[in-house]
């Protein structure tokens, strides 16, 4: 059975939940798999650490919660400490390097993207989540590129398509380069 588990985390207001819904839509509607999205839902969702979980499988009605994530994305220091730092080597850890300083043990293997910095360059820090999705798509293969692009365009407000496409592409290119660098190092 092919089962992938993903956690997206950050603080409330960064669009973590939207990013999670986009991944779910990409996997289930556009890639034709089964995806289950759940979120830590509570008072902590406002300003505190915020987390979206996804299970992507080939089977229907699978166990809906994550236990062994293969990818953890952290877009805040608090979320990094809580969700990413405890992860072992088999887990791909992705951080927004403008907001998260990884611990020494993980520093050499963490995948870094300046998502917030790129979003600011594009004129809207709000699209940092979409930059992150572009990066995630490039480095993790959690969904196909086409599916993720379609899901982004299907989910963002009308009139922001170009901005979000740019954000996605910038993140995606950044991810491609990161993979190339890693290949060179090896």
């Amino acid at each position, binding site marked *: 059975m092919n089962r992938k588990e993903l956690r997206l985390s950050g603080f409330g207001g960064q669009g973590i939940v939207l990013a999670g*819904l986009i991944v779910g839509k990409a996997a*289930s509607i556009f890639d034709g798999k089964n995806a289950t*999205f759940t979120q830590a839902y509570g008072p902590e969702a406002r300003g505190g650490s915020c987390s979206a979980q996804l299970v992507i499988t080939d089977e229907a009605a699978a166990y809906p919660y994550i236990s062994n994530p293969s990818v953890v994305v952290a877009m805040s220091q608090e979320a990094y400490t809580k969700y990413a730092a405890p992860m072992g080597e088999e887990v791909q850890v992705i951080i927004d390097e403008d907001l998260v300083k990884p611990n020494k043990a993980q520093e050499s293997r963490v995948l870094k993207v300046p998502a917030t910095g790129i979003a600011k360059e594009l004129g809207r820090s709000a699209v940092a989540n979409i930059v992150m999705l572009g990066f995630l798509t490039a480095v993790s293969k959690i969904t196909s590129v086409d599916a993720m692009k379609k899901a982004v365009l299907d989910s963002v407000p009308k009139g922001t398509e170009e901005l979000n496409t740019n954000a996605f592409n910038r993140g995606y290119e950044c991810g491609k380069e990161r993979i190339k660098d890693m290949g060179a190092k090896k």
Partner: protein
Amino acid sequence: MSRDGQLVGEFFMNGDVASAEGAICAGCRFFAGYPITPATEVAERMAERLPEVGGTFIQMEDEIASMAAILGGSWGGVKSMTSTSGPGFSLMMENLGLGAMTETPCVVVNIQRAGPSTGLPTLTQQGDMMQARWGSHGLYGTIAIAPSSPQEMFELTITAFNLSEKYRTPVLIMSDESVGHMSEKVVIPPMEQIEIFPRRKPTVPVDEYLPFKADADLVPPMGNAGEGYRFHVTGLTHDERGYPDMTAEAQDKLVRRLLDKIELNKDDIIILEEDGIDGAEVVVCSYGISARVALLAVKAAREEGIKVGILRLVTVWPFPDQKIKEIAKKIRAFVVPELNAGQVVLEVERCAGGAAETILVPHMGGAVHDPDVILEAIRKGSK
């Protein structure tokens, strides 16, 4: 979206929203409710969608009024629904009984959260299962359905409306926070592929109509207000005309029918999902999110060589007595995981009647079961 405002296609949506879309497809055009976590998204979606399809949404002052309003909406001829959770469900109990007594088709969606009282507003539990059956005073039958996924929230909300019209009774969707807030793909077929049970209209002339005179299946056809049929609705014990009749005889006739119309039509109402029960030593009997969580334990148990079957109660009420009795004769044990201290397990135990052991896997709520705990119970049951 189709011309009549129905969504058609594949959507990534949560269980609450899927339930609202199911209601729209079922023909629900009136929703009265009061927002409460984790059911708010049902109301939110209905507030957005009903005006698009020519329906009406009202935010009421509380859940007592919400329940009253949907009874009125239904008598006016419009399929009606409300949604709630926790304390709101408690407040609806009195008027739910009025709905049962006046045989008013309507749907109540309960996205269960952890109680008692305010409890854990944002976290899951299946603590209202007995309240669903017995929550209003007096004697009446209950139809309650427990979906396990957003797709089922969509489909079974349509089923709930169909059963409510067919049996002229409130039908409860007993979901939970886990399923309500979980997002998955929901496939919405075009209307022509969706089966809808229309309101049972009277076939007799207007002056011969008796609003509580039942057909052979114990359900009376329903004339709507404004269609020329005279009717009288009361929570008092009433005769076939709907007029109060304060006698033991009238009580026996009416209340026996209210119970029997559910009890004697059980085979038509009950929906079960079975897997691997033939030859099983242990059968996991569960519902809603717990049934889904149990799948992982069942899979692990089967890998260990334990013969384990699954009986998923898609409808929890009326309870499938006969089914449990039959299975009990052939197996060692039932394992019943539920997010409470033991509610539906009491029914399983009653029906098993000692022929098979009954092992409860309780959980006080706030999270779902650890599948390993269910696995341990399956191991225990197989020995």
